[in-house]
């Protein structure tokens, strides 16, 4: 299935395949982005600032989008159960503050613990997914929603003591947003940051994301990764090869949820705030939409799909905001975000090619 391995002779084929995969919906999105960029240029918006904020938002979301790859490749479809991993990452991030950690120590603690928790819950989630083959997306969506609301109760009851996180005047539970100012706010963004033509490049963040892209890339090429992709592409064939379909689906889920946990910590790091309660409710949809915009389908995704998709999607969001502000009202970019992200998911769902119901 994976053609990334192949070298120059298949370039033309790759381009053809890419064009076929690209489809109408993505062309519209690309056209939309081009129009936005032209509009931004005409209106004389500061392109360097736009570019640096695109880069920063790309890094902020990239790992959450990467989390889609293992599940898609293992045949469980895009991971709509992402809030589970996100919740793990949030718990780890909140714990790092409770334990009074700062800077890189806090960040790496949150990333490490989050990944560990994500892997454990991902294992359980994988077992669930194996019980509901063919309906993973629907079950995952509502499972994710339930986890978010269950975690609301947790945030509300959890006995945290750090004054930065609880309400100042004796309300119960954690705050809705927790500022990371003195903790690990932008530690990666500021690491080796430099400026090119007035656009600041968040080197640390991009490096970190690159490392994770590499990890996913290597994993998908490892023996386990290839077996996982085989299971996703053709479960019967995989079974006849002696691969345990259920096992590799669980591995995909474990990897995905661990990535989700890391992803949300990085998200909070760039954003500067940890958002609790209902905030993660729709995050899965934006991650799914991103990877689909990048050219993935419901049963095939590569690291490149995730990177391109995340970059395109975030570019649209970043550029549309000031353009919309000048042209009409501020809400337009939010509306565009909803229409684009759900439109692309719908488009992927209705494509004639094989979908989640084949098995």
């Amino acid at each position, binding site marked *: 299935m994976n053609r990334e391995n192949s070298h120059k002779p298949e370039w033309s084929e790759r381009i053809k395949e890419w064009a076929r995969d690209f489809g109408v919906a993505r062309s519209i999105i690309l056209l939309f982005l081009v129009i936005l960029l032209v509009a931004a240029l005409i209106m004389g918006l500061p392109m360097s600032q736009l570019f640096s904020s695109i880069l920063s938002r790309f890094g902020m979301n990239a790992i959450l989008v990467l989390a889609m790859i293992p599940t898609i490749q293992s045949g469980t479809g895009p991971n709509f159960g992402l809030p589970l991993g996100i919740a793990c990452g949030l718990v780890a991030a909140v714990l790092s503050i409770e334990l009074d950690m700062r800077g890189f120590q806090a960040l790496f603690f949150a990333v490490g613990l989050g990944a560990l928790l994500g892997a454990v819950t991902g294992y359980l989630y994988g077992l669930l997914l194996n019980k509901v083959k063919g*309906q993973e997306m629907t079950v995952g969506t509502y499972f994710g*929603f339930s986890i978010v609301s269950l975690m609301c*109760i947790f945030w509300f009851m959890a006995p945290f003591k750090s004054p930065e996180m609880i309400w100042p005047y004796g309300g119960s539970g954690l705050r809705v947003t927790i500022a990371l100012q003195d903790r690990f706010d932008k530690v990666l963004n500021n690491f080796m940051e430099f400026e090119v033509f007035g656009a600041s490049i968040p080197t640390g963040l991009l490096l970190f994301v690159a490392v994770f892209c590499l990890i996913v890339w290597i994993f998908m090429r490892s023996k386990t990764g290839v077996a996982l992709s085989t299971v996703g592409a053709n479960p019967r064939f995989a079974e006849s090869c002696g691969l345990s379909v259920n096992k590799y689906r669980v591995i995909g889920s474990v990897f995905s949820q661990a990535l989700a946990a890391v992803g949300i910590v990085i998200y909070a790091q760039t954003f500067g705030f940890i958002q609790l309660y209902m905030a993660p409710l729709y995050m899965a949809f934006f991650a799914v939409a991103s990877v689909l915009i990048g050219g993935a389908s419901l049963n095939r995704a590569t690291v490149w799909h995730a990177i391109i998709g995340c970059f395109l999607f975030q570019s649209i969001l970043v550029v549309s905001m000031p353009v919309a502000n000048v042209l009409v009202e501020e809400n*337009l970019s939010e509306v565009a975000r909803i229409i684009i992200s759900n439109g692309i998911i719908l488009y992927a769902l209705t494509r004639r090619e094989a979908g989640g119901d084949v098995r």
Partner: protein
Amino acid sequence: MTEQQKNTLPVTETRLERKKEPFDPGYFLRKNVVPIFFLVLCIIGGYYSGLSLPFLANEIITRMARNSFLVISLIIPILAGMGLNFGIVLGAMAGQFAYVVTVNWEMAGLSGFLMTCILSVPLAIVFGWLTGRLFNRAKGKEMISGIILGFFANGLYQLVCLFFMGRIIPIRVPSMLLSTGVGLRNTLDIKAMHYALDNIWKVRIKIPGFVFPIMIPMATIAVIVVLCLFIRFIVKTKLGQEFRAVGQDRHIAEVAGIKVDRVRIIAIIFSTVLAGLGQVIFLQNLGNINTYGSHVQVGTFAVAAILIGGASVKKATISQALLGTLLFHTLFIVSPLAGKNLVGDAMIGEYFRVFVTYGVIGIALALHAWQSLQQRKTVTVEAASEPVSGGGK
């Protein structure tokens, strides 16, 4: 594939035979475990909420009258094998657009309400037709498509209401628009049509010792009864038989000469139109429209309600819909107060209710997927002589 389908037939037959067995309490409990569980939960919640019974009864009656219609609108697609129609959000939007028109025409009272109903129907038909076509392209993935379609349509809805109303679509009544003159306000006042249906015939029952009498909106209840009879009638007609045939097995229905795609679209149109009317009834009881919020949760709430009533993705009856509405909304009323009295904070109860809403849907969907997987396994193993998995439903 065809061999497998032949083998599915005995499975369903044995299930039908099981139904005729004499009453077995264990089986009854297992079959109705969901509604019984929620009944217990409601009773516990009701006890700890500290609400007086007449007050609770009043609230429940109001909410039943308000929501039953929407929940019942889910039944036909379930019969047609399309699962839970999360796309009823589009029907709700049709209802709200209809209200925008009638408020813009400054209509009031019962005539305004009826006009809204009439206007919502063609819109809902168009929306339903589009939804049905989409579902036909995503067979087997109707539910997730419906969920995403709801979000997508909500984006388009916001686009129309925020940026087109007042600019492209002329609005006569300035109080509907934001101060900039473009875009609808967050709340649309429909006081002129408040209780238009409910007030036709209200029965007041005085309870000695309580200030407020129990009010029963008989007209609304009559409408719901008519709807129930209509659903029963539809199921008995040729069209209803076709719905069920398609729901049983798409391929066999196709072979039998039923135009499966067309029947599926009709099922969704029915559902969307009913949801549109349901939303119109719902809003006349509320008296104002939360322009950007009233419709968002319609699908989730209705689906959760019908599942709590004991329906599954494959099977739903009117009584399950009504029972589910009753239990779900009782939980709605008592859970914040019960949470406050039990744990000391109303938010806990509120979060718990949200969790239950999503959790019920998640568990029901997971159970259904698991059962059908088991069924498929038994069929492929061809040990279908005594299918244990079929008895669970």
